[in-house]
């Protein structure tokens, strides 16, 4: 390193610990005096830079930090209200969503159970004749229903209580030749009348009393007249 290079570095970084800088400093007295003058100048400059620091500045910094923290922590009433309303909305939305999901799942399960039940009791499909005069009323009474119009009995071929999915149900054969099956299933009441069908059946779920009335028939069978008559003739007390 020559003197020019040394002095250039000295004006940039007189505190460098570079080996060639230190070596030149040791061997060149002029450059040693130069670097000493630069550091002495810096010392004077440092002294001149020592502007007074306000005594209470640290306290103000702390105070501002604490206030900032408290402000961040403090939640205003309207923010609480907003947070609460958002929470309620989300919770309600979630609840309703869950309800809808749960109801849809129940309907699907009920339809599957009913179709399965009908398919597994073929012996009664071809029931002929008419139900004994009070049999239909007694079966329905067992499920909290009252037959208020006896005319419907002319459409009923057979009525009895059986079990589906470990639950007692009212099983009624109606329509022409007992082609239409009416089940009354206790349990979760659905929200609205819901038609359904599969490859060979059609039907409708009707919320009634403490459960649902299910009318199911082979595809192509008219069920609407029976559904209307059932609604008019049975009163639910549950």
């Amino acid at each position, binding site marked *: 390193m020559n003197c020019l290079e040394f002095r250039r570095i000295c*004006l*940039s*970084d007189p505190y460098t610990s570079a080996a060639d800088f230190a070596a030149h400093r040791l061997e060149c007295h002029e450059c040693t005096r130069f670097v000493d003058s630069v550091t002495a100048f810096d010392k004077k400059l440092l002294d001149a830079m020592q502007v007074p620091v306000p005594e209470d500045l640290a306290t103000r910094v702390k105070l501002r930090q604490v206030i900032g923290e408290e402000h961040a922590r403090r939640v205003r009433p309207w923010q609480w209200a907003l947070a609460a309303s958002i929470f309620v909305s989300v919770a309600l939305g979630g609840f309703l969503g869950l309800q809808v999901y749960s109801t849809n799942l129940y309907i699907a399960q009920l339809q599957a159970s009913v179709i399965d039940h009908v398919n597994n009791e073929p012996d009664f499909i071809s029931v002929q004749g008419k139900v004994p005069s009070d049999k239909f009323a007694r079966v329905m009474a067992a499920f909290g229903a009252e037959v208020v119009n006896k005319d419907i009995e002319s459409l009923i071929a057979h009525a009895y209580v059986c079990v589906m999915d470990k639950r007692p149900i009212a099983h009624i054969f109606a329509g022409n030749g007992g082609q239409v099956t009416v089940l009354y299933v206790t349990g979760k009441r659905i929200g609205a009348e819901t038609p359904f069908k599969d490859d060979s059946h059609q039907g409708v779920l009707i919320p009634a009393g403490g459960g649902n009335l299910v009318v199911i028939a082979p595809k192509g069978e008219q069920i609407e007249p029976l559904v209307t008559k059932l609604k008019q003739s049975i009163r639910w007390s549950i």
Partner: protein
Amino acid sequence: MFNGKKFTVDPVSVGMGRSKREKFELLLEGLMDDLYRYAYWVCRDRVQAEELVQETYLRAWKAIGSLRDADSAKSWLFTICRREYARQFERKRLQMQDVEDIGELPGAKVAFDTSTEAFVLRRALATLSDDYRDPLVLQVLGGFSCEEIAGVLGISSSAVMTRLFRARKQMRELLTDDESDSRCVTEVRA
């Protein structure tokens, strides 16, 4: 480094294992004076420097979790200060104040050098452009290396060295002019 303040904050003590509050207290106790002086020389306004320091510490408090290396605590804090100043400057287009307005503060921590020599040096320093004054203040007052200054200012080390060279050269020229002016005044009076 002659100012002996490079590691005013014990690197070990600011390290991991301490609570956020303890780290903050150490940064405040160890570095606030230097930070205030740096802030002053950046903006050359006492009131704004105080505001700058308070805002810097507020931001430091929020981001203290990101401070992993105790050795870099000082440059970390100065970088926050420099950025905050740039943000405020952009926002307010601040009016600079002449350096001659610095005076004794009631209840100030240290005595203020009121000598003519100090006055002349401060005036010369204030005359430098921001580009030259900034690295010089960081080196002389902050005790930072060229690499650290580069980090604070967001420029290359070679650019820092060039600016420091020109800053010292300009200071020398300004002070030589001052000495000539003083001699002229003395000669005229004589």
